[in-house]
């Protein structure tokens, strides 16, 4: 039986879709049968980020409505045979999701795949509750910035109140990814450090991802950064994927090491 990870946030635009795409590729690269599902109904994005926008024929609503079999709607990711993708529908009508239909699709996916990633809509959107209801674990994405952090705490509150596991008195595992860290600003004391954020939110850290220009190029080309050796963010997502696969990967201090190369060479000049 697979594990369902819902990737959530309070505020929108913090990097959920980027995270979902990269972690799914990451666990697939670790040899795990993985599927990533776009639950952001009406705002289909993940297909572009994965470079699969031309391959979408059927989406999750077609499957839920019984128009096609799950197998027909699953799109293989060409760059890794362990990964499949299920698209969101572009309809404006967000009421297409119902608990029963969602449960049916997810339980089918759980039989076929080891890792199921759900790219959720932002915490305030309708559809959020469907995306977290059946989660075994949630991955909360925040930026080191006050509104993102505050809103994420409320989203975590909704998970605690509304998910199936919590309602059955069980614990939903919750993990934090801090995305778009700017090491220079943290060093200057002008950006919240990961330590500060963990103090405030009181949940377990899964990983830290730096701000990385290469992500723009990655979404332009549909070639996620985890596939790019040169990308710092890509390496961070790879470490997180390994952690999700049970490997003990030490946390890299991305908040202070950034300019060591430059600093060394400047010091050399004065030696």
């Amino acid at each position, binding site marked *: 039986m697979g594990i369902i990870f819902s990737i959530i946030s309070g505020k929108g635009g913090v990097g959920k879709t980027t995270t979902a795409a990269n972690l799914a590729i990451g666990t697939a690269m670790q040899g795990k049968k993985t599927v990533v599902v776009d639950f952001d109904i009406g705002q289909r994005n993940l297909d572009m980020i994965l470079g699969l926008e031309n391959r979408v024929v059927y989406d999750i609503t077609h499957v839920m409505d019984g128009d096609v079999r799950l197998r027909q709607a699953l799109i293989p990711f060409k760059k890794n045979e362990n990964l499949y993708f299920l698209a969101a529908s572009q309809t404006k009508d967000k009421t297409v999701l119902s608990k029963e239909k969602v449960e049916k699709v997810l339980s089918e996916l759980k039989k076929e795949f080891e890792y199921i990633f759900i790219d959720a809509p932002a915490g305030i959107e309708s559809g959020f509750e469907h995306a977290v209801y059946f989660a075994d674990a949630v991955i909360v994405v925040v930026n080191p910035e*006050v509104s993102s*952090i*505050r809103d994420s*705490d*409320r989203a975590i*509150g*909704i998970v605690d*109140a*509304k998910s199936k596991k919590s309602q059955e008195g069980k614990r939903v595992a919750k993990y934090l990814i801090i995305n778009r860290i700017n090491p220079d600003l*943290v060093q*200057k*004391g*002008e*950006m*919240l*450090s990961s330590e*500060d954020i963990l*103090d*405030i*939110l009181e949940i377990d850290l899964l990983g830290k991802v730096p701000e990385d220009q290469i992500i723009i190029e990655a979404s332009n080309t549909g070639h996620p950064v985890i596939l790019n050796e040169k990308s710092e963010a890509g390496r961070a997502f790879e470490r997180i994927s390994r952690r999700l696969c049970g490997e003990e990967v030490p946390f890299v201090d991305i908040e202070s090491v950034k300019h060591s190369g430059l600093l060394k060479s400047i010091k050399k000049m004065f030696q």
Partner: protein
Amino acid sequence: MSLFGSFKKKKSAQRAKDRLNVAITLDRDSNLYPYLDELKIEIMQIVQKYSKIRDVRINKEKVDDQDILDIEIVLEESTKT
């Protein structure tokens, strides 16, 4: 410690942390009872079996360390003619 250390303005990240701690504590308090809306609807449905009502008001209070839900049922004015 520099002589002027205590006059120095706090770095903005520290201020963010302080402000977030306060804001989130308040948020968590006000979200202690996420079921209030549903509770209100159910109470209305039950009471309506016996009497016409105008509103159900639920107030959250804290007396010392005791949390209290204060439920007030406002009946419809009697429609006797």
